[in-house]
């Protein structure tokens, strides 16, 4: 891991802290009944978003699932926009029209969070096709869960991306569970993503998804391959979610020992320890933590102060002319 320069590693750490603190805040706001609807936290899975978020370039495309707060933030979308959207406020990234499961910020390259399992994979293929057609050097990166590897769209997307040699990167966040069912109970192979790669002529890649350095390096390699015109990649990142599937789930179905062992591999403290071991002064890290907390606090206050969206906005932007007319 010596190949990653220190400033990048500090940026990775800062990203991890941002994603963790903001996601925890989302949970707190939910407990205060300020976050409405559902939400799917990525606590424990931040290293995948941070590693890719930093490795990607400005024009690259992110496509993620309903569990997408971390990916949205990792591309630079503002915290107030994320928290505000969860709270149904005007300042939300979607001004309250999408909610937690649909975070999008096109100007940050976040091309949407999709709530139909697997639905976004063919869409990412289309964005990669468009990049290839325009000769733009952009790559499209799609994040999804282990459960998604058993839906048809996953296989259709991979095959088409491989046949057309598209600059698409498929990143499976294997957190071992679909909603409540262990992935191994319902999947014919051990590695739900990597063991399928051969079907599409792709190498099997398994990465420790809790090691942000490892993810960052794997992301860089896949992005280079995409930009070189060598086609798609499929990367399986092994990880674990710290909370339940969604806001209402206490995750009682997971054995205590399993949870325990994964908490020991929490990507934040392990990375912090690694940086300290490499001689980074602790004060550098506590400064980062203090600054991020202040930023999360500011974003929270701004979101709380933001009004609910105007009712008229429910009738805008069905169509490109800005309206909702279906008849004359």
């Amino acid at each position, binding site marked *: 891991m010596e190949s990653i320069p220190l400033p990048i590693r500090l940026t990775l750490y800062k990203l991890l802290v941002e994603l963790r603190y903001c996601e925890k805040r989302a949970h707190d706001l939910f407990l205060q009944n300020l976050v409405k609807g559902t939400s799917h936290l990525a606590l424990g899975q931040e290293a995948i978003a941070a590693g890719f978020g930093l490795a990607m370039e400005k024009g690259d495309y992110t496509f993620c699932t309903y569990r997408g707060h971390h990916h949205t933030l990792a591309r630079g979308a503002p915290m107030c926009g994320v928290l505000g959207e969860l709270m149904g406020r005007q300042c939300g990234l979607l001004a309250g029209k999408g909610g937690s499961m649909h975070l999008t910020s096109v100007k940050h390259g976040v091309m949407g969070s999709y709530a139909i399992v697997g639905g976004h994979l063919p869409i990412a293929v289309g964005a990669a096709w468009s990049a290839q057609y325009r000769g733009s050097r952009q790559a499209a990166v799609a994040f999804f869960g282990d459960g998604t590897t058993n839906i048809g769209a996953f296989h259709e997307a991979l095959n088409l991306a491989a046949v057309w040699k598209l600059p698409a990167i498929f990143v499976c966040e294997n957190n071992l569970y679909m909603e409540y069912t262990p992935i191994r109970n319902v999947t014919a192979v051990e590695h739900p993503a990597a063991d399928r790669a051969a079907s599409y002529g792709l190498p099997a890649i398994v990465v420790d998804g809790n090691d942000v350095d490892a993810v960052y390096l794997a992301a860089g390699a896949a992005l280079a391959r995409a930009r070189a015109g060598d086609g798609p990649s499929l990367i399986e990142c092994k990880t674990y979610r710290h909370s339940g599937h969604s806001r209402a789930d206490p995750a009682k179905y997971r054995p205590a020992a399993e949870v325990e062992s994964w908490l020991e591999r929490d990507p934040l403290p392990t990375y912090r320890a690694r940086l300290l071991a490499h001689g980074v002064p602790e004060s550098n890290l506590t400064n980062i933590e203090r600054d991020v907390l202040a930023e999360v606090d500011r974003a929270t206050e701004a979101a709380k102060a933001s009004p609910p969206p105007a009712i008229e906005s429910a009738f805008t932007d069905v169509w490109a002319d800005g309206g*909702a007319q279906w008849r004359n």
Partner: protein
Amino acid sequence: MAELSYRDAVAAGIAQEMARDERVVFLGEDIGAAGGVFKTTVGLLDRFGPRRVRDTPISELAILGAAMGAAMTGLRPIAEIMFSDFLACCWDYVANEISKTRYMTNGQFTMPLVIRTANGAGSRFGAQHSQSVENWAMAIPGIKVVAPATPADVKGLLAAAIRDPDPVLFFEHKSLYSLKGEVPDGEHVEALGRAKVLRRGDDITIVALAAMVPRALQAADILQAQHGISATVIDLRSLVPLDTQTLLAEVTRTGRLFTVEENPRLCGWGAEISSIVTEECFFDLDQPVVRISTPHIPIPAADALEDAVIPSTARIVTEVLRAVDFRPGAARGI
């Protein structure tokens, strides 16, 4: 004016738009080298090359998903779904993704794409290759729904659909592919969302779509020649947007409305039209609105059965006569 078949008008419309706009790309199963299973896309691969005319695997999800991703990132894709029945295999994209993403993201995306598909009965293909599913589509906010009845409209409305910044589901009727008609020379683009009054009469209004249009016209001729009933015939051309002004004007004038729908009965497009008419010009009506539709059954395969269930010219005439109880020479409105 040149005479073109409805089939050839498809390729003509696509070619016209691909020639003027580099962003227009085309994908689907067997559309390139094979020229389409209905031969609607012959010559496009030769003219525009495999970069812009792309044969796909049998992956309806990937076809519509890729079209959507391309539309969100600067292209103007045309996606072919071979038979409209197969839309059920990729309905997620129609119902959940393509139609909702602009709205959900508060207008961060536009979605300029066209889904072309062969719709409708008449080929004795049975219940999974013969449906008219335009009413599925019009139930979804966020996607436009167009269904041409003539070669000129195929070219002109397809061009308009490709240029439109919103997604359009474009239903070609497979039993019309061999129909010939005049198509204007040079660039031809129609406006979306305008119904066309094909003939004007004083006694009744018949509104129809796609393959039901020629039948409505024939029925109007028979009603005039044999029964002295003078009918307006409207080709709706587009269900979303819906040209209610043209419709309401004719219904107000004639006082009697008949819809001719190939979709199955329940929640067919005629039900919406009937609702609009009763809400907005009830006191101009001289009789209840009459819906002439395919019954609420799957489409049978045998020619005798298929012909019996799809609204025919004869059935339109019979239904009109039964409803109007028309006496030659009598004044309207009795």
